[in-house]
């Protein structure tokens, strides 16, 4: 276990250094990630003028979006398509370590480059994030990050069966957009949409930490939300492990 953590740490270090070499492009993908939460902020501020809770929520959502950004369709799927997965397979460490390392490296850069954007959005929108509630949301951000990674990883594994892994991941992102709290804060939806949305995994990946930071979830609802989040993490991780085992048997690298 300790060895695994050390390997992940080393991988984050190596990957983030290599990501730094294409930093100007990194800034553009940070902008790309920020666009849907910012649009949500603008549209909902126009729909409900003077509602400071909705602006606080969307500023928190922007931060969560950057901290949970996942690109496994680029790192993992493209490795499957161009055969570089073969090289990762013969290394004396699980393949997933480098996928995690590059994911976390990217998220660190996303947060660093995104901080000015978050700060500007917070000031312009008049977001009021309470320090205590922000702290309360931190574990949820970590679980959301893990959950979104596992979900994207799972969809990216479709590259072992089809040429359209990018489309599959895109489909997953559409679901996260619609049901995860970007299209609308789930708390603003009528029943039964709200309860259904809260039980699905997408809200646990994105909207939940933002709602906690904005102070819209308390008490029993909070612990229930954490339970749902952890439950989905266990289910999706188990599923990803099974799919990886089954899919790997199909893998045949290209080239000599």
């Amino acid at each position, binding site marked *: 276990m300790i060895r695994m953590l050390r390997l992940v740490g080393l991988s984050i270090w190596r990957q983030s250094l290599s990501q730094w070499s294409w930093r*100007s*492009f990194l800034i*553009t*993908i940070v*902008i*790309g990630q*920020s*666009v*849907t939460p910012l*649009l949500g902020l*603008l*549209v*909902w501020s*126009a*729909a*409900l003028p003077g509602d400071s809770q909705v602006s606080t929520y969307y500023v928190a959502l922007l931060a969560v979006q950057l901290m949970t950004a996942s690109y496994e369709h680029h790192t993992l799927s493209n490795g499957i398509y161009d055969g570089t997965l073969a090289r990762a397979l013969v290394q004396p460490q699980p393949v997933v370590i480098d996928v995690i390392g590059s994911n976390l490296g990217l998220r660190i850069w996303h947060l660093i480059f995104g901080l000015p954007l978050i700060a500007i959005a917070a000031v312009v929108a008049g977001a009021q994030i309470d320090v205590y509630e922000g702290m309360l949301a931190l574990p949820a951000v970590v679980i959301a990050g893990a959950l979104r990674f596992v979900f994207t990883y799972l969809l990216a594994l479709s590259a072992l069966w089809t*040429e*359209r892994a990018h*489309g599959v991941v*895109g*489909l997953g992102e*559409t*679901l996260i*957009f*619609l049901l995860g709290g970007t*299209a*609308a804060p789930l708390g*603003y*939806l*009528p029943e039964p949409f709200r309860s259904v949305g809260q039980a699905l995994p997408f809200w646990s990946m994105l909207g939940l930490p933002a709602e906690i930071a904005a102070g819209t979830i308390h008490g029993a609802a909070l612990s229930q939300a954490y339970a749902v989040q952890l439950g989905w993490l266990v289910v999706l991780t188990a599923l990803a492990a099974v799919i990886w085992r089954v899919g790997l048997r199909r893998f045949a690298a290209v080239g000599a």
Partner: protein
Amino acid sequence: MLKLIRLFATLFSMSLRRQITFRADLVFELVLTVVGLAASIAALGMIYTRTDTLGGWGPGEAIALLGTFQIITGLRTAFVEPNLQWFGKQVKEGTFDAILTQPAPAIFLASLNTCAPLALGQVGLGAIVVAYGVHEASVSITPAGVAAWLALLVAATVIMWATRALLAALVFWAPELTLDVVYDSVWQFARYPVDIYQRPLRMLLTYVLPVAFLATVPARVLLDTGQLVAVPVSIGLAIGSYLLAHLAWQAGLRRYTSATS
């Protein structure tokens, strides 16, 4: 001119034949389009559960705008993106040479060489969404309004193509800069009426970046024929952006020195 049109008709039919060879992809593409569009409409619906108007636009009107946005996006995905996405790579690696040696203007060959005809499904679905939005908004549509809307769609298409080509030409001056994702990000602002944005942003999206002319202006003219003055403005803007793209490419091509190994 006629020769160019014939050339692109041939290229289109080749791309179409290439794409329909893969039937599973065809179905998958259709699923992606329908899900994406349904999600956008649902997102609008969620907003209208809490409010009646958004920047002065009712639900039906906003749906008609979304449909218009979808049409222009479909045209962009079908004709322009397959060529200009990651165009900088061609210039950096020198494969752009192949385009320069062909007997047609480089700007057209580089930006319209291949296409993805399946994405035209987005255009068809967009048109259905516009019809549904107009029906929901229960406004009466005049033939003049439809004609103006079509003219504005053509203008918006030219603006889309020209701004995209302009951005691609940036590689001749700044090869390290890849702004494809930024263009996509700004593009997303067109899916809502620009009236909802605060004043400085609205000004930026109308006068500096012609985002307002992609969907907001055409949809507004379709729903309210009193705004016909937008037609000459939009056509003028389309011609202006075409000329700008043309000049940028000419100047850029003079700087192009190919890549050596």
